[in-house]
């Protein structure tokens, strides 16, 4: 069993490796971000009404986040399974909970950047107006939701990314689990955006739900990641 500091070092190393790969390949910037943006534009085509768009903007931001997240997770495990990197790490005796923490951390950074972009798109395209307090609340919502999404995404991504032909499994496993995040984050963002006359103060209880979700899946992920990715 490795000590806490060893595990932290491994986690940071794994996260740095993932972010370096992302920095060099620019998949997030060149492919995922444009995909997320076009989804936001397509929502506008489908709903075709400025008033409705402004009202449902928070839900659309989070739906676009979930869809783009699937792509990011698949990417983050494709780099592992391509040459058996994850198996190599496991064979080398690296603590699976440290790998889980590292990959979740890298995923958090990428998701957070993506969500900032999507909120920005909503402000520009859907005519959302935020107060300063609302902006702060939106930031806290993004952070809380991102931690939960990254943990649960890493957990199921590891399971679905283990071998070829499993990619189609990820949406089926992941989307039902993240329903609480979609509900909580959308309501909290509604409060932050003031959509439909919602007050900023109404958002905080939802952020608590997001935090509870994040804590549960961070704990579950550290325990269950090992058995789920074991081949």
């Amino acid at each position, binding site marked *: 069993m490795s000590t806490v500091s060893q595990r932290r070092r491994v986690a940071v190393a794994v996260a740095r490796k993932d972010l370096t790969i992302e920095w060099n390949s620019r998949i997030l910037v060149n492919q995922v971000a444009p995909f997320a943006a076009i989804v936001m534009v397509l929502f506008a085509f489908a709903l075709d009404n400025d008033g409705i768009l402004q009202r449902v903007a928070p839900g659309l931001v989070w739906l676009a986040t979930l869809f783009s997240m699937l792509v990011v997770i698949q990417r983050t495990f494709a780099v592992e399974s391509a040459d058996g990197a994850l198996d190599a790490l496991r064979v080398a005796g690296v603590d699976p909970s440290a790998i889980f923490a590292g990959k979740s951390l890298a995923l958090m950074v990428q998701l957070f950047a993506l969500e900032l972009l999507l909120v920005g798109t909503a402000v520009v395209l859907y005519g959302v107006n935020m107060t300063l307090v609302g902006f702060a609340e939106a930031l806290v919502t993004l952070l809380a939701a991102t931690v939960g999404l990254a943990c649960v995404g890493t957990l199921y991504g590891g399971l679905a990314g283990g071998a070829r032909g*499993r990619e189609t*499994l990820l949406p089926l496993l992941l989307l039902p*689990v993240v*329903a609480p995040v979609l*509900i909580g984050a959308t*309501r909290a963002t509604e409060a932050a955006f003031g959509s439909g006359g919602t007050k900023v103060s109404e958002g905080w209880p939802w952020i608590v*739900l997001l935090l509870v979700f994040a804590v549960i899946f961070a704990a579950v992920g550290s325990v269950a990641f090992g058995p789920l990715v074991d*081949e």
Partner: protein
Amino acid sequence: MNSAVTTPRGTGTRNTRILGVLTIILMVLLTFCGLIFSGEDINQGSTVRIMYVHVPSIWVAYLAFGMTALCSAIYLSGRNRSLIWDRFSGAAGEIGVLFVAVSLVTGSLWGRLTWGTYWVWDARLTSTAFLFITYIGYLAVRRLGGTHRQRARRSAVLALIAILEIPLVHFSVNVWRTLHQKASVADPNAKVALDGLMLFSLFLGLIAFTMLFAWLVIHRQRSLALEDAVADRGLDAAIEARREEATN
């Protein structure tokens, strides 16, 4: 090795045959009680008869998912890790998915007749739909391949995560409904006064469906054991063939 492997003529034994015959008798009795003997409801008319199938199916589904979780926990905690627990979880999971589907279909038919709509965004309905999808995912993971042990470990962990996730989804869907928008159509939890024969039919349904579940789960477990045995034998044959190639 499981005893089923040595009796290749079928998955039935004397006991399961007795169980099967009793189940059929109770089902016939339920059909008569539900469709003919029991009276119509004052408000719902004959629609109430759907309940004699709807309520037992969701009961069996809950029972099945509970069994999936329990057998998975036993598998993970056991020292010898017998695959029989894994097969029981898998069998129960399959039957649970089937009966959630039955209860969703019968429920929406009942809803169409009573509320005038197939679906209401009620917390209980929505959570049940999530339950359905979650266990479809569980069954998909069971078919990922690999050795029996890999399948058993993977799916057991997933079944335990599912048990943790369901209350969370249920809770958030619940607050979503209560805080966001009140259900405008008839309250599904409203008290319904049942007369004696209606109550009897409902309980008969619960017993008959539970027996059907037991019969199905035993047979499915045995057929899964046979499938595993066939896969093992296929592997042995392949190894044997390679050996012969090497020696010749």
